[in-house]
């Protein structure tokens, strides 16, 4: 395999990792605050549709992005209402929201565009276009580093760069700010946070809100960056892979980057089964590659390779007057 092919695969890895990374960090905020969220998939899907639909109507992808984030936030608000305010079962709420997104997006898409549950394909300013970083053209002649810069680092949409910047930002917020400390505390021991006079409900809603924003960006990226328009069920299980990545990363931001890049890489090479055969000499079933993120996560969860310990108060509604 030559450098150019490798770079192509890595390039695809970056593009496919981006939605996973955003969704994974979204889940990280939520679960660190003690709110399980298996509705990442539904939030992304709702955002993907809304972003594509609004971008198609207005012709402006930025308005689409804002609309996508708003849709995702709305889903977050329902999740917060069910799991924080009414102390319902967070897992059941997530399941319901996933179905709701899967059904509503097609219903509304059909009513608005009548194209069999998809949006019109987006062009020009209605989608995020690749950005060529400075000097990418002129440096591409430099051996090895030139192509890496021009092919791999340059030429992605703005949301890809944003998602990679969210990793250090998440780390900084969680581990270097007062808000982050409180957020982590509320996921471990909400009673202690409450005793200190800080609102558990407020913190948890803030976390769920951040989760909504990040899922919104992830969804908008799917329909306006990675692809040019919304199609039915286009998240294709990415929300669950992000959830798997979150466990794989043991709820830590930098590990999340690694896990998402790994899972993105698995998705990228699944598209190029000819390459795998050329490199390792025998055929690997694509289905095995599809299942690998889940199998790896089960192994990690089982504690055979390191132990993944979730936030202690995760999944439990906080009841003040016990």
């Amino acid at each position, binding site marked *: 395999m030559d450098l150019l092919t490798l770079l192509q695969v890595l390039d695809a890895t970056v593009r496919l990792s981006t939605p996973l990374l955003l969704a994974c960090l979204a889940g990280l905020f939520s679960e660190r605050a003690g709110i*399980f969220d*298996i509705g990442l998939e539904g939030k992304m899907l709702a955002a993907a549709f809304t972003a594509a639909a609004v971008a198609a109507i207005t012709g402006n992808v930025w308005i689409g992005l804002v609309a996508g984030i708003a849709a995702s936030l709305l889903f977050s608000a*329902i999740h917060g*209402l*069910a*799991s924080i305010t*009414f*102390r*319902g*079962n*967070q*897992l*059941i*709420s997530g*399941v*319901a*929201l*996933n*179905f*709701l997104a*899967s*059904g*509503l997006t*097609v*219903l*509304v898409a*059909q*009513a608005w565009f*009548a194209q069999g*549950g998809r949006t019109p394909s987006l062009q020009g300013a209605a989608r995020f276009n690749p950005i060529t970083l400075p000097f990418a053209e002129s440096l591409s002649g430099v051996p090895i580093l030139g192509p890496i810069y021009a092919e791999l680092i340059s030429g992605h949409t703005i949301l890809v760069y944003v998602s990679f910047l969210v990793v250090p930002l998440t780390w900084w917020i969680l581990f270097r700010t007062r808000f982050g400390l409180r957020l982590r505390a509320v996921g471990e021991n909400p009673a202690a946070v409450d005793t200190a006079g800080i609102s558990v409900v407020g913190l948890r809603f803030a976390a769920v809100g951040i989760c909504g924003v990040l899922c919104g960006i992830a969804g908008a990226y799917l329909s306006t960056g990675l692809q040019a328009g919304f199609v039915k069920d286009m998240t294709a*299980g990415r929300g*669950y892979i992000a*959830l*798997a990545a979150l*466990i794989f990363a043991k709820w830590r931001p930098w590990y999340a980057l690694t896990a998402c890049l790994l899972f993105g890489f698995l998705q990228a090479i699944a598209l190029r089964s000819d390459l795998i055969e050329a490199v390792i000499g025998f055929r690997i*079933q694509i*289905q*095995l590659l*599809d*299942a690998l993120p*889940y*199998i790896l*996560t*089960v192994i990690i*969860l*089982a*504690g055979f390779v390191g132990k*993944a310990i*979730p936030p202690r108060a995760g999944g439990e509604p906080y009841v003040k007057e016990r």
Partner: protein
Amino acid sequence: MQKMPQWADVVLIPLISLILAAVLSGLVILAIGENPITALTIMIDGAMGSKYAWGYTLYYATNFIFTGLAVSVAFHARMFNIGGEGQATLGGLGVALCCLYLPWPHWTLAILGAIVASAAFGAIWALIPAWLQAKRGSHIVITTIMFNFIAAALLNYLLVSVLKPVGSMEPATGKFPEPTHLPNFAEMLAPLGISFSRGAPANVSFIIAILACFAVWALIWKTRLGYEIRAFGHSESAAKYAGISPTKIILISMSISGALAGMMALNNVMGEAERLVLNATEGAGFIGIAVALMGRSHPLGIFLAALLFGALYQGGAILSQDTSIPVQIVLVIQALVIMFTGALDNMVRVPLEKVFLAFNLSSAKPATKPTAAE
């Protein structure tokens, strides 16, 4: 402390949740520019208007009874088995292997073999996450989700490579041999002189589903094991103190749950398709969650909820044929039912409890006052 009578808990709350879900679904239909009343009429007629319609409604209901029971048994042990989809997929594999590779003389024997195969395959697929939960502490919800995807990938692989008949392009097994054909309602009712629609897929596995309801009822409320499962579900520490092994309860209840989900394949794989195709479960594993929540984890409630969801699925299919409303409206209704009966339970329950408390206080005042004064 009983805050309100049991009938309110069992009947009134699900009913109010259902009405809320129905009203919101009506608003959704209104918002996409269709008439909700017309839609409801079409759905009811499409699901219950003819023998043919009933044949489909009961066919779907059979699937949902199995998956609903599966979720409920796990619920009794306070576990959320979200992996019904994967377990039913594996159950389908069990049925397919059993029907294709064993020479069955008659369907009565074949169905017994298929029950064992589907239940065993489903149980094994649930047993691995259960073991991981009991012994390694991995969260059962996450592992069962992962196992859904692994099951899908596994079946996908088997259907495109090993199980596909030679020369076939389609990712599906060959047709099961004739002796494994399960009688459908038309064939079952013909000897009794009752005519039933020949084209409808409802079959003898509906009877198995009803038997499963009785079996689950007897297991949960009439056996020692059922008592242990419920005790464990109410309080793990109390159950442990009473000498009930958590590992045993987790493993057994999840195996039963997986076996029930796997047995769904009797209906959709053996009864209807008579071969194994990709994505044969069509989301029935997830509908089991809604059914179990609505049915309050009781077999009778599950039976009724499964009938309702069966009608919803058949009605939704007819609705999408007759109007421009896509079939995904069913997903929306399903989501709202899960939301209201599951996650937003307290939204309905708390105000209702207040109503009952206020009512009880005013009516019971003369009786309670003297005791309070002493």
